[in-house]
């Protein structure tokens, strides 16, 4: 593979962020990013810096139906959503245009929300940042007092084809790691701490064959590891 100079990296990352890198070139860059953490750093640099241009944006109020749809989607407070919806219905002429579709969609979502009991909020009391050796943080693990947990990618962990990342609970050195399931490089993933997880000290992520370790213990290299700490104020 051709080695990119620092200037090339910065240039390509900036064009990736601006959006002028498109089509096959964009896909090629995304593949390159998987092998070169310096490219992620450049992308993140440009995203943060150019994001400041957002302050100079004009203001254009979106129609109320957008917030209604968002609330329905994130399962937010149903009462508030209905109140806004009723008001928006009469105030907004454009509402009627999308009425049939939106109402059907919203009704379906509300039905699901009514049928599925709302979970209590996820309030983490312990967190662990998992890092690879000598590199920056790649995952954040959060654990709530009731034993629910979540593992979320924070850097952009790179996964080889045909492999999966598996999350492990680390306890004192006498006891074996316990699998908490696969971790996704795209989205946060929930897990539940098993019984006997008292005395937990941290988490690790190993590289496993697709679908996870076939043996119930880590079979591949442990690529990320981090200790648990309590969150402030908890």
């Amino acid at each position, binding site marked *: 593979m051709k080695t990119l100079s620092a200037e090339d990296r910065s240039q390509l990352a900036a064009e990736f962020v601006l959006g*002028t890198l498109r089509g096959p070139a964009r896909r090629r860059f995304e593949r390159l990013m998987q092998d070169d953490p310096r490219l992620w750093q450049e992308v993140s640099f440009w995203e943060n810096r150019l994001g*400041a241009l*957002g302050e100079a944006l004009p203001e*254009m*109020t979106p129609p109320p139906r*957008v917030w209604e749809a968002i609330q329905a989607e994130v399962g937010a407070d149903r009462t508030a959503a209905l109140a806004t919806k009723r008001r928006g219905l009469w105030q907004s002429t454009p509402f009627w245009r999308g009425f049939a579709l939106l109402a059907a969609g919203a009704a379906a979502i509300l039905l699901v929300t009514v049928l599925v009991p709302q979970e209590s909020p996820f309030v983490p009391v312990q967190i662990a940042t998992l890092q690879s050796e000598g590199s920056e943080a790649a995952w954040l693990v959060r654990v709530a007092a009731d034993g629910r947990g979540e593992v979320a990618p924070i850097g952009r962990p790179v996964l080889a084809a045909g492999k999966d990342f598996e999350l492990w609970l680390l306890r004192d050195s006498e006891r074996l790691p316990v699998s908490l399931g696969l971790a996704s490089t795209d989205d946060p993933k929930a897990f539940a701490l098993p019984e006997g997880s008292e005395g937990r000290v941290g988490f690790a992520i190993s590289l496993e064959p697709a679908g996870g370790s076939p043996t119930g213990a880590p079979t591949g290299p442990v690529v990320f590891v981090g200790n648990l700490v309590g969150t402030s104020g908890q």
Partner: protein
Amino acid sequence: MRGTDRERSETGIGRRAAPATNLRFMTDDPIGPRLQATARGEKDAFSDLYRLTSAKLFALSMGILKRPDWAEESLQETYTRIWRSAHRYDPAKGSGISWIVTIARNTALSKLMRRPKDEFAGNEAEMLQLPSQNPTPIEAAMRSSDARMLADCLSELDQEQKQSILLIYYEGLTQREVAEHLDRPIGTVKSWVRRGLLRLRGCLDREDS
């Protein structure tokens, strides 16, 4: 260089800048703490975020997608993403507004890139219908320290370099579209963008150190 009437008319950007009164809340990043509260599942904070930022993000989505129905879709997807991934926001890496603007832009751009060209119904006239009362120059609208630094560095660029980069950023144009818009050869525009970004990087690095 500070924003001038000449610059506004040439970039087409200044006329889209918000009245200064709407920007007061942007000066000390009230967005970051609300993102952190959203990450903890606090719906009021999420609601505040929407109230404070949706008009800007909607304008951004409209700028890029040009069609209200697509922009609404994009906005909805943006906030759903913000709700789901607010825990990934790291205040050490940048301001809250930068983070959500990046999400909004990426969402709108990926929609734009997925649409076939002939579906694209936007036109210059629509672009100009964005609210323009009491326009302020782009630099004047950028108040936080991050934004000031960026504005200072942008002002060091040649007018064409800056104009091309801003057209691409705010309107989601390709370099070819910028070339058509400005009636210049594509090679010239590419070189403006490349050199502009290089100088911008140099200036930002200097300001950092």
